[in-house]
């Protein structure tokens, strides 16, 4: 409501200038972006702000709670569950990034050679990446479910005693990481292969003329050329692994005894299992804060290039 009575004249000029702006070419970028900006505000920005507020309340899923200040965050710092989830998120991301980068680079180097049916292999090796998470976890679980499962039969052939992959803490952690590597190496392979194919061939010719061995060509031509893209890929993979819910949840549901529970699983369990929205939101915010540090590093990297 305006304080002074609006003159008819005012509104018409306002409308007229708005109409003119809409007709002119200047408004087009804004109009084109309007639907996406609206969606992002409604589905990302608004919930994010509300969630930030929930982190300071004691609410449940059924009713809004009262403001409790930093209580939730203090409770988190004192909880061993949280510290363990923080540690597991770190281990999970670190081993997955190392594993899928090594595997991806190795396969990309193989596929960059002249091999018959190279196109076929390039597609066939992507399958673990495009298969739905539930499908891959079903078949992996079958292979390691109990003492009669495939892996244990193979271990038995070599005279070993059965391994309880999903009920032993250390083996469960190893299994979650191994399956995550299996699910994410194709992305690394694909991106590194694209980068390898973008390297100027004359660099290798020059190196060969100078008498560089195959290893030295790799060490002094390939590696430096891949350096930037590798850092970006590893940062991206770290972010995606911290955000991963499907692999640990579908394989072990975070068990045994929360051994494979990362921050996202913990936030999920607090919110939807224990009905503690405040604590769950606080955990998600810690996750966001960690990820934003990585995103800032990533953005800075990309601006440098």
């Amino acid at each position, binding site marked *: 409501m305006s304080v002074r009575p609006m003159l008819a004249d005012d509104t018409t000029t306002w409308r007229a200038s708005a109409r003119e702006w809409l007709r002119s070419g200047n408004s087009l970028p804004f109009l084109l972006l309007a*639907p996406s*900006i609206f969606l992002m505000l409604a589905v990302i920005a608004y919930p994010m702000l509300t969630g930030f507020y929930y982190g300071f309340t004691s609410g449940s899923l059924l009713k809004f709670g009262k403001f409790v200040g930093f209580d939730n965050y203090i409770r988190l710092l004192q909880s061993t569950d949280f510290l363990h989830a923080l540690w597991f998120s770190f281990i999970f991301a670190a081993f997955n990034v190392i594993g899928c980068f090594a595997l991806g680079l190795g396969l990309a180097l193989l596929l960059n050679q002249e091999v018959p049916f190279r196109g076929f292999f390039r597609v066939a090796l992507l399958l673990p990446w495009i298969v739905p998470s*539930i499908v891959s976890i079903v078949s992996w679980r079958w292979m390691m479910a109990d003492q009669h499962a495939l892996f244990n039969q193979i271990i038995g052939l070599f005279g070993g005693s059965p391994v309880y992959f999903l009920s032993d803490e250390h083996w469960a952690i190893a299994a979650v990481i191994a399956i995550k590597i299996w699910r994410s190496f194709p992305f690394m392979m694909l*991106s590194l292969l694209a980068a390898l194919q973008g390297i100027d061939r004359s660099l290798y010719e020059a190196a060969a003329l100078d008498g560089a061995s*195959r290893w030295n060509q790799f060490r002094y031509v390939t590696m430096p050329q891949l350096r930037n893209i590798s850092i970006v890929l590893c940062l991206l993979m770290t972010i995606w692994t911290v955000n991963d819910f499907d692999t640990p949840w579908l394989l072990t549901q975070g068990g045994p005894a929360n051994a494979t529970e990362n921050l996202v699983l913990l936030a999920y369990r607090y919110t939807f299992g224990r009905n503690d929205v405040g604590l769950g939101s606080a955990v998600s915010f810690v996750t966001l804060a960690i*990820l934003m540090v990585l995103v800032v590093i990533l953005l800075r990297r990309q601006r440098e290039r």
Partner: protein
Amino acid sequence: MAYPAPSSRKRWTLFWLLVVITIIVNLPIILMVMNSFQTTEQLVQRTTILPRDLTVANYRYLNERTHFWTFLWNSFTVSGVSTITSAAVAALAGYALSRFRGRLITGYSRALFVVQMFPIILALIPLFMLFRTLGLINSPLSVIILYTVVHLPFATWMARAFFDTIPRELEDAALVDGCSRFGAFVRIVLPLSGPGLAAIGIFSFLFSYNEFFVANVFLRDQDAMTLPVGITMFMQQYSTDWGSLMAAATVTVIPTFILFLGIQKWITYGAVSGGVKG
């Protein structure tokens, strides 16, 4: 690195090495398909790796006794609708990113990049409470809204990359002929980017069809579940019925494979432009 050209013997050694690697890497998928033709008893008693006495009992069970077709139908509806909405919104935004410069464009592009890295659980908690008051829990609409937004970043970048390949001169000619800027986009640019939009659509469809986490939060009723969530119900209810589980997983993966074959030549493009360029 293939310099000088390798001998044919070396090429075929590499070929067989890759055959072995490909089989080992895809072993979980291959075994799953083979196991789906065995009853659970056969699976438990079997001592060889290769199956004997194939049977379609699991598939018959899936068809007659479970909600499998409901799950599949839900998956198709949710994925289909969210594909159309996100492709439409992303095409508009992608065109803006491709043809205009300015603060708004830079800011938006950066926001997209950050959203892609966002821990989705953060938005899910408040949205769950909001959707409950709106009666959207167990409604396909809840998941469709989420998928549309989650796909926006990569779909927008892919759209932008396709529009970048269409020469501006075509639009300039249309503008000279008296077409509006938006008219030029709809009449000239969009028809030329058909294949690109199709690729974006297939990517979005694949992502929605495979997605588990969001669907798991919002779809809690058997009749509303999409396939990935539905299969976890199988897993909990019949925890040792591996035969039907494998059959369900096998049918689930068929649409994925078909769509994947449709976009495999775009896939480097999509992965690199969506994830890395920013």
